[in-house]
Structure formats: C-alpha cells, structure tokens
C-alpha cells in the first residue's frame, strides 16, 4: 500500500512541534511507509532524527536559496519528494507556512486539499477528515473524492506527537530548478522574544474587561507565571491596547493550547472561532451570563482585578 509523506517545517534547523504531530499522525494512519520531506539550508543534520517520530525515509532539499521560506521553491521540493514516493497522502502542519504551502503543492499536483483538519481517520483507501466550518459553528466530515495524493493540513496541537524511536534513512533531493519569483528578503522578528500565541501550550487572554492597556500587565504576569503566551480579544486589539499578533479569533489566530484562560472576554462567536478547540478552557468574568461560560471547563464569576493577583501567587507557590 502507498505510504504517507509529511512536510517537516523547521526554523534555524529547529523542527516545529506541529510537524512532529503530523508525522506521528501519519505513522498511526499509514498503510505503507512514512516518509518526511525537510526543506531549507543547512538542515540535513536534523533529518535522521525524524525517524524517532516514525519517518522511515527523510527526503532533504538543502539549498541556500531555500534558507527562507518560498512557496514556489518549497512546493517544487515537496512535489519532487512526492514523485519519488507516490504517496497516498501528504500531510502538513497547519502553521502559517503549512497553510500557505499545502494548497500550492496540491494545485501543482492537480488535486484538492483538506484544510484545518482536527481528526483524520482511515476508511478503506480514503482518509476521512473532520474540520470546523462556519467559524466552528459546525463540523464537516469530508474526504478528497478519491483523488490521490490526498493533501491535508492538520490543526496544530490537536494530534499527539509520539516518540517511538528509530533513525530515518536520508535521501537527498537534488536537481531542483528553483524558479523562485516571490522571494522572502528577510524575516523580521516581531515577537520580541515572546512565545507566539499560535505556538503556545498555555495562553492567557485579556479583553475589554481589562479597561485599559496598562492592565495587560496583569494578564502578562499570569502568563509568565504559567510559562504561557498573551492573547487578546479583538475589542482589546481594536482599542489599541495590544498588537494584532496577539488577537485570537476569526480575524486573528486560531489556537489549540492545552490551557486557554480568557479574562474579561465575553465569548463572542468570532472569538470562540479561534479558541474553542483548546483542551481546557477557563473563563474569568464578572457577568455570570457571559457566553464564554457556556464553553468553559472551569470558571470564576468575579472581578478579574481581584481574582488574577492571587492566582499568580498560587501558581508561583506551585512552581516554588
């Protein structure tokens, strides 16, 4: 049976956690061999280790012109690996890169793609995916209509990464033409050393209930105590209290951390669209009827200004 190919994303040779999650999911589903494709410059050293997550082979495109991401260049490399493996499916992690690359690769191969998938199972020779639609107000169960390869992007942090041991055989992809027209000239760090919400395992978000920009310090102190990232509602972003990169929701980032704490956020449907697949949801709101409580696993009805400072102390006690 044909195997599954997984695109592996790296930044400075650090393999993205979400790619390892995709690799593990491929191992759980594959009828045949699982192969990885790793693209970048000076990245070959990271390839054998992909075996630990289930890759039997790791195809590597290593070229200075691939140092920074390029949809065209990376798509060419992935298509070449697909030609070498004739996979039944190609999986991508649904990061900014994966969401950009997967559809370009799919179109290059003349097939469709299933985006933002939160469950992926096998039904005979088809993969069946479940994906949120209408901003999470409904879920669609879909397949790729019998076309192969089946191109799928997986929502990060939904599938478990499992280390099983092993070393991947490295295969070099060469002879790439790399006709790159859209060239990434630089990657500007806008994170300022902070964890991006899209990558964080714990997120503490603040909304209009914070009353002003200075009170994000309170959110930040809880996030720091928990080792998490700071998120925000659109109301807080639109008020200019915090940068848009922190926004969670339909017009912000879609996140699935293990723990999402929403403080002073009402829980509008567009906010829920970005965070309702979080594993544990906590709401802190003074309005017991706020919609956020309907999806919260835990909550405190109360004044966030009175609740968060003792929470920070309690969390610090656990750590200390």
């Amino acid at each position: 049976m044909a195997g599954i190919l997984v695109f592996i994303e790296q930044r400075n040779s650090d393999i993205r956690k979400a790619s390892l999650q995709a690799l593990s999911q491929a191992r759980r589903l594959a009828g045949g061999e699982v192969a990885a494709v790793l693209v970048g410059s000076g990245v070959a050293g990271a390839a054998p280790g992909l075996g630990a997550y289930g890759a039997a082979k790791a195809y590597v495109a290593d070229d200075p012109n691939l140092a920074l991401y390029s949809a065209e260049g990376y798509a060419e490399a992935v298509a070449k690996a697909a030609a070498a493996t004739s996979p039944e499916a190609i999986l991508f992690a649904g990061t900014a890169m994966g969401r950009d690359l997967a559809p370009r690769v799919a179109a290059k191969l003349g097939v469709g793609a299933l985006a933002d998938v939160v469950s992926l199972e096998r039904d005979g020779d088809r993969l069946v995916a479940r994906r949120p639609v209408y901003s999470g107000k409904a879920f669609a169960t879909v397949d790729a209509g019998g076309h192969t390869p089946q191109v799928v992007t997986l929502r990060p942090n939904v599938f478990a990464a499992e280390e099983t041991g092993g070393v991947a055989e490295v295969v070099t992809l060469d002879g790439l033409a790399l006709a790159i027209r859209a060239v990434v000239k630089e990657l500007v760090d806008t994170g300022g050393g902070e964890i991006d919400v899209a990558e964080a395992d714990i997120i503490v978000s603040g909304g209009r209930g914070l009353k002003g920009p200075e009170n994000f310090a309170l959110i930040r102190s809880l996030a720091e105590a928990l080792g998490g990232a700071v998120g925000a509602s659109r109301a807080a972003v639109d008020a200019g209290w915090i940068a848009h990169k922190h926004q969670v929701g339909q017009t912000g980032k879609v996140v699935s951390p293990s723990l999402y704490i929403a403080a002073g956020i009402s829980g509008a449907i567009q906010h829920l669209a970005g965070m309702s697949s979080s594993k544990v949801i906590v709401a802190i709101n003074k309005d017991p009827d706020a919609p956020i409580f309907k999806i919260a696993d835990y909550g405190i009805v109360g004044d966030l200004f009175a609740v968060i400072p003792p929470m920070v102390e309690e969390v610090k006690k656990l750590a200390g």
Partner: protein
Amino acid sequence: MNCIVCVTSVPDTASVIKIGPDGKKIDEGGIKWILSPFDEYALEAALQLTEAKGGEVTAVTYGPARAEAALRDCLARGAHQAVHVAGGEATLGDSFTIATVLAKAFAGRSYDLVLCGVKGVGTDCSQVGQMLAELLAIPHVANVTKLEVGDGSLTAGRDVEGGQERVECPLPALITCQKGLNEPRYAALKGIMAAKKKPVEKVEVASLGVTEGADPFYVVRSLELPPPASEGTIIKGEDDPAGAAAQLVNLLRSEAKAI
C-alpha cells in the same frame, strides 16, 4: 494597473447555523449573505492601487444567484467591472474546483495583480488564492498585511508566527489579504445607486468546460453542529476572590492536569 479581485458571498458571521435536511449543507433559511470580510481588504487594496496608478478593478465571483449582491457591493464601493460565474452550489468548499473555474474565467483578461481574501469565511479553507496562483502560473504572497506596488513588482509584508516576512515579487502576481492591510471603505449612497446601473457580466460555468459535481475534490459526507459543551465547574468568586483563585489553581493542577 489592472486588478482582479476574487470575492465570495458568505453567511453573515453573526448568523445562527442550522443543518439542512440533507445533513450535508446548512439550512439557508434566515441567513443574511455578505461579502466575505477578508475580501473587503482585497477590494480596498485594489481600489487604492488603481486610484493611485490608474487602471481598472474587476470583481469576480463564482457562486449562485444570490452572490450577485456581493458583486453589487463591490461595484458600489468603486469596482469598475463585475463578472459573475453562475453556479457553485455543488462545489462549495472544493477549493481546487473553484480555483480551476476562476482560472478559466480569467482567460483573455489582462491583469497585473489578482487579490483574494486570506480566507472565505464559512468554508474556512484559506486555499483558493494559492491554488489559483499555481494554476495561473504566477507567484503569490499570502496573508499580506503590508503592500507596496512599484513598477512591475511588489513588496509585501506577510505575518508568520513570531515574525513578519518581507517578500519581493514581480508582477503579475496574486496576494491574499489579511486584516491590518487597510481600512475598507463603506459604499456611499451615490455608489449604491450607480452600482445598480452598472452591468454584471454573466458567465455560465459549463461554458468554461467544467461540469459541476462530476469530479469533486472535496466530498462532504456529513455536516453536524458541535457536540454540546459539557457543564463546566464554575466557582462563585464575588465574595472571596482569593479563595476562588486558590480553588481554581488547585483544580487546574489536580483535576485538569493542565498546569
């Protein structure tokens, strides 16, 4: 500077979603249809470019009869031309077929820049732009929040985790537009009146050589509402916030094992 803006008509984001009788589509009764919010950034960017550099904005949609309203909205805001490829009900969410139809509809039209929204709200795929660029054999930049267009090339800023990529790209090219790129204008009454008189070019999807539903790349097996959320543990914290905080942290540690 000729721009083509791809737009799609979607349920108002405040709509209550109900599942239709076939269990595969939404019940469209009571839904208000709007121009997909991200397409507004695409249209605004195109209008600003042609205002500064001349040329025309053509809005294109592939959708059922009601999608014409999205085109009228574009015309009212200043688009010069509108093209309606009629159909699209059987291919909802099938990004590759949609991109194929759009690419065929572009044949014979001249453009320097194609603009899409970053995501069609509703199907939530974020794929049509990239696929269309590949089919048109032009480069693309997705998730654009900054744009400068020069002579024969563009520079775009694109948000990624923890950073922003600065991309340079020759024209013709395609971009997908994200919130932050601009502030979309509203249609003025004068524009709305004028839009009523502007023609909308009709194209039958069959005339493009596509038989809808014949060879789908996206098959919806079923559509369901999310499972009802289980009752959470809600602590009353008005009188003793510190006690509630301690109780919550304890539950997160010992019961949820989240910290």
